[in-house]
């Protein structure tokens, strides 16, 4: 066995190529001939088994379940508290001041149809935003990449929000206010849009908070009014021009609008622009990934 398997680099001065030959080296029967061995050479990343990433994501999800829901008494039940409280307060306040909501007759259906997809966005965005920071120490394992950390949190948060929505909508529509019409297509579209936006925005937030830790606070303050500006409380069509057009730059307006078209047969939601929402998600996600790769490389060099 000689050094012939490792050609010196084009710019490599021969003086730096310091490994001497090793006539006494035993392969211990582990290697084939040198041709076999040469073809088997891979970089560490190339050598990963095909399902390694899925395995890592599953391990991160299990860990996340343990740390997020396993600690406090009641655990998983707490994720229901925010939407139930949010919808409950809105229903209580508006049902005392108004006779009927902007659409239909039930305040609970009206607010749930807007607030739940809205929460799919905010909760998942928040989860993805903290994903890389929370998995920081685990990224030192060569098998854990930042994409694994993001996807693990993303999948878990989306699943949790889907369960929360399904349970709350099930109670409202199945028991409290049964109704004939339910457009599964538009509702699914609204949730997929919310989840896509959350991934894009979450990745962008993630890298922004890594570079500028204050961004987390800025984001939470800046997005407080979103629940009003996204048509959850005020139906978008009721907002006067030109403010209505301005608000359509907010992609959540389209998410909430699409969801409402699935709950109210007569509601058309002509302003809903699905393509705009996916473009928004793709652009924020791509920009986030580009900077995240750069950040990751820099942080790996420390």
């Amino acid at each position, binding site marked *: 066995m000689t050094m012939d398997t490792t050609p010196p680099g084009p710019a490599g001065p021969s003086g*730096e190529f310091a490994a001497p030959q090793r006539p006494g080296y035993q*392969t211990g029967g582990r290697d084939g001939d040198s041709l076999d061995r040469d073809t088997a050479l891979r970089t560490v990343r190339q050598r990963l088994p095909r399902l390694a990433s899925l395995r890592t994501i599953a391990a991160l999800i299990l860990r996340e379940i343990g740390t997020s829901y396993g600690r406090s008494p009641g655990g998983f039940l707490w994720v229901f508290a925010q939407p139930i409280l949010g919808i409950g307060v809105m229903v209580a306040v508006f049902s005392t001041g108004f006779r009927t909501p902007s659409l239909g007759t039930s305040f609970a259906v009206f607010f749930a149809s807007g607030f739940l997809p809205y929460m799919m966005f905010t909760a998942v965005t928040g989860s993805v935003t903290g994903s890389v920071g929370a998995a920081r120490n685990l990224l030192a394992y060569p098998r854990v990449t930042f994409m694994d950390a993001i996807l693990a949190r993303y999948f878990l948060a989306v699943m949790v929000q889907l369960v929360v929505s399904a349970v709350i909508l099930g109670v409202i529509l199945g028991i409290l206010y049964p109704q004939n019409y339910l457009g599964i297509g538009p509702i699914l579209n609204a949730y997929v849009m919310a989840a896509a936006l959350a991934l894009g925005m979450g990745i962008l937030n993630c890298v922004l908070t890594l570079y500028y830790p204050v961004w987390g606070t800025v984001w939470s303050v800046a997005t407080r009014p979103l629940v009003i500006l996204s048509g959850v409380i005020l139906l978008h069509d009721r907002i006067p021009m030109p403010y209505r057009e301005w608000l359509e730059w907010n992609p959540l307006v389209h998410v909430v609008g699409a969801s409402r078209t699935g709950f109210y047969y007569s509601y058309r939601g002509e302003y809903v622009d699905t393509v705009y929402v996916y473009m928004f998600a793709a652009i924020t996600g791509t920009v986030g990934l580009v900077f995240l790769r750069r950040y990751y490389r820099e942080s790996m060099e420390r």
Partner: protein
Amino acid sequence: MIVLRNLTKEFRMAGTRKVVARNLNVTFPTGVSVGLLGRNGAGKSTLLQIIAGSVAPTSGEVLSDGDISFPVGLATSMHPNMTGAQNTRFVARIYGVDTDELVEFVRDFAELEGHYHLPVRTYSSGMRARLSFGINMGLKFDTYLIDEVTATGDAAFRGKSEALFQDRLRDSGALFVSHSMGTMKRMCEAGAVLENGHLTYYDDIDEAIAQHEENMTRKPDNAADELQR
């Protein structure tokens, strides 16, 4: 076998440039235990992290025909808020081995007793090293990367660690960093000396140690790096 191909690694910090690896082309043969020598701050730990794949090289690549462990050592990848057992379970999952078996193996080996079920942030550095070493030894790798770890614990624990490590070395290779030349001589067949970004491989650990000790009588050659910035 691990092949470093045109491997360069440099840091830029506060305006100065530090070169850890300067266009290295070195092959570490299969199944050989190699002691990595070099002065403090020469970049031995960084080189291990690059070989493991947890630190990116500036240019060049690391190739291998076998599985390489994550680096065991004091600066480990343990998550401080997870317990020792949870960290073990996590590693078992990402490497796709039986979680219960590995958890049991590490519990028996690392002798952390009650601390095994406490968060790693409460551990002493020696306990972290024992946990990290235990997890690594519980997994099957073709090359183990060991950074300054056998110097922890009492004499009985050190003896047990060395015996287990020797056992693993019967069918695996290793890259081994230690400040104790006695340990190096016992554990390693071959040696490699990292000096000023150049890595020189020696078949015989004694030769490598002799070269390293000669290097240590000279001043480090940093002046050249400073000028190139």
